Structure formats: structure tokens, C-alpha cells
């Protein structure tokens, strides 16, 4: 029964993925891609990886989807959204099949796994959720660099602004119709989303959730509030927003250095202080992740002007 369910699910995933690559029209491809992400999140839940399921739904389907939709909107305004019909590309198909076949071969050839034994070290990590323990304690260096990658992407996106628009607010000028659906939605949703986002971060220590998933939900809340016209898009020059961007990586780095001075080394957390330290780092990270994601989605400073 469950195998039949998994086969159906995978068939759906493949079908939607196929449509997003080979179907007609870029807009439909984006919609198929968002659906694909949501189906994939179900697959992760079937595999018992609930943290990944949440990340896939919130980050891959949700935020990447919004990014693609926003970009498609801008491309259409620039008359660059269209795509001529294409023929089947045989060499590409051969390469693609070869790579997929290599992975299939590897799956059946792989030896039995030898997972590292974490049962002894998990109690010292300070948190009950083993994935959070890996992300914020055992492999904190990866996570620290990853939070900095988000920041680097944002600086990169800002570099794509036109020079004469640099002082303008971030993102395209946007106006919600007063009293419209979005405007009222924008007043109702934020409190609920805020609570859910904060819960995800707090719960992440011991069950499913975490800074990246929680930060994504908070980012979504912030975006809706901006689209409703309640919160205004900032400018690069506003220091509070820039401070919020560096808060998380900054706290993470400084706590890592504190570990080098007072505990078992760089990024080390003494077992009895690990839980409060991880919650503090996650809280700071959540703020920065949420702000960075919002600014990534709304894009570089833009005064709406065009260059011919």
C-alpha cells in the first residue's frame, strides 16, 4: 500500500518536473516548479525527514517560487518573458540520460551505509532535535558560512541596481489598492504568521523547525505586509536594516570566538550552556535570515525607470 503511494507520488513529481522543463511558456514552468516543490516536500515527509520537508516547502517551493514569479513579471514588462517553441535536443538528452544512468548504477552498487554513531554526543549538544544539533553545534561552521552566503547573494543582487537608482527604495515601486483583498490580508496575516514563525524557531531546538524555516515564514509575513502597503520598502542607506542583515552572522561569529576563548575551542559550546547559546544564535539568525530573504525577493533599488 505505502509503496503504491510512494510510486504515485514519485510519478507525480516526475510529471510536474517534466512539465516545468519541457512544457510551453515560462510562466507555466514557474507554476509547475512551485507545485513540484510542494510535492517534493511530501516526499521528504514520507522519508521521515520532516525538517527537510519544511525547508523544501518554505524555501524551495515558496521563496524560490516567489523569486521566479517576481522575475517573470519584470521580464514581461521588459518584453523578455516569451520563449520560442523548441525542438527536442538529442545531444542534451544523451548527456542527461548518461548522468541519470550513472546515478542509478551507483544506487545499486553502493555498499551498506556506515552512519556515524551520534548517540553518545547528542546529549552534549544541548538540543533534542538531532538535525538542529548538527546544524548549530557539530557542523556549525557550515551553517555560519551558509548564513554568510545568503548575505553575499544579497550584496550581489544590490550590485545589479542601476547607478542612478541606488538611492531609491529597494524593489520596484508597488501600490496596493486601499481596502482591496491584499490590503486586508496584509493586516490579518502578519500576527498569525509572526506567531508561527517564532514557534518554528523555538520548537526547532527539540522537534521539527529551525532558524531557516522560521525565518522564511517571517519573511513571507514581512513581504505580505509590504505588498499591502503597511510596511514600506527600505533604502540601502537605512542603517537599522543593514544592522539587521549582519546581526545573525555577527552573533554566530562572536559566539564562536567566545568558544575559542572560554570553552573547548572555536565554535565550541560547553554542554551546560549549549541550549541557551543555540537559542540565542538561532534567534539572531532568524532576524537576519528573514530580513535577507525579504530583501532578496524585492530586489535591488529601483525607481521604476528604464534604460533603453
Amino acid at each position, binding site marked *: 500500500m*505505502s509503496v503504491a503511494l510512494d510510486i504515485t507520488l514519485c510519478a507525480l513529481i516526475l510529471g510536474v518536473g517534466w512539465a516545468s522543463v519541457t512544457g510551453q511558456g515560462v510562466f507555466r514552468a514557474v507554476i509547475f516548479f512551485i507545485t513540484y516543490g510542494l510535492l517534493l516536500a511530501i516526499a521528504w515527509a514520507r*522519508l521521515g525527514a520532516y525538517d527537510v520537508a519544511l525547508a523544501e516547502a518554505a524555501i524551495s517551493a515558496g521563496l*524560490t517560487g516567489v523569486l521566479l514569479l517576481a522575475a517573470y513579471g519584470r521580464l514581461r514588462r521588459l518584453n523578455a518573458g516569451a520563449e520560442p517553441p523548441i525542438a527536442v535536443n538529442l545531444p542534451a538528452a544523451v548527456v542527461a540520460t548518461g548522468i541519470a544512468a550513472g546515478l*542509478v548504477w551507483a544506487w545499486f552498487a553502493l555498499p551498506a551505509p556506515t552512519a556515524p554513531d551520534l548517540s553518545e554526543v547528542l546529549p552534549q549538544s544541548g538540543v533534542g532535535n538531532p538535525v538542529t544539533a548538527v546544524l548549530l553545534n557539530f*557542523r556549525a561552521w557550515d551553517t555560519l558560512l551558509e548564513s554568510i*552566503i545568503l548575505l553575499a547573494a544579497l550584496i550581489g543582487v544590490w550590485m545589479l541596481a542601476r547607478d542612478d537608482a541606488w538611492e531609491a527604495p529597494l524593489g520596484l515601486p508597488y501600490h496596493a489598492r486601499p481596502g482591496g483583498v491584499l490590503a486586508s490580508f496584509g493586516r490579518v496575516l502578519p500576527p498569525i504568521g509572526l506567531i508561527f514563525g517564532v514557534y518554528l524557531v523555538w520548537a526547532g531546538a527539540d522537534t521539527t523547525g529551525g532558524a531557516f524555516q522560521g525565518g522564511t515564514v517571517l519573511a513571507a509575513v514581512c513581504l505580505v505586509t509590504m505588498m499591502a502597503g503597511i510596511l514600506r520598502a527600505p533604502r540601502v542607506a537605512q542603517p537599522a536594516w543593514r544592522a539587521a542583515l549582519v546581526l545573525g552572522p555577527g552573533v554566530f561569529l562572536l559566539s564562536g570566538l567566545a568558544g575559542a576563548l572560554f570553552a573547548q575551542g572555536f565554535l565550541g559550546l560547553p554542554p551546560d550552556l549549549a541550549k541557551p547559546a543555540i537559542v540565542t544564535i538561532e534567534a539572531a539568525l532568524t532576524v537576519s535570515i528573514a530580513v535577507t530573504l525579504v530583501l532578496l525577493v524585492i530586489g535591488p533599488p529601483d525607481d521604476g525607470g528604464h534604460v533603453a
Partner: protein
Amino acid sequence: MSLSVFALTGAALVGLGVYGLLARAHMLRRVIAFNLIGSGLFLFFGAAAARSTDVDPIPQALIITGIVVALSTSALAVGLVVALARSTGKAYLPDDEGGA
């Protein structure tokens, strides 16, 4: 059995993504294809990690990191596509025009 289904789906998604990356020239399409490859690889990885008797959280953590990295690169890629279209009027790289 189920694990093999997911692993082989992952492999097929990688193949689909590679095809999209090579065969489609519209840059948003390529960003989507790139995300398919990444998520296919992760699905393969997740299935491989689920083979061990007790759950190994390390692959899950690596995959979450990978998802965030993919989002970051997608954001910069999408920004570049829009900037390219603004300066040239096209969402194609100079040599790949026409979409074939």
C-alpha cells in the same frame, strides 16, 4: 523498495534538470532546471541516508544547508537575468538566442 523508488526518482530528476540546462536557453528556465538537479541530488541523498537502521541526521542537515545555498544562488541568478533583460531586452545569453 520505497527507498529505491525515491532514489531512482532523484536520479531521473537530475537527468531532467541536466536536459533543461542544456536544451533550454531562456535563463529563467535554466534557473528552474538548476533547481531540479539540486533537489534530485538531495532526494537521492535522502534515500541513501534512510537506508541505515537508525536515522542519520547529518545528511538532513547537509540537505537543508544545500537548499539554502541553492536559494541564494537562484536569487543572484534571477537578479542577473532581469539585469540582462534590462540592458539587452532579452533573457538569453548572446550566443544562445533563438532558444534552440
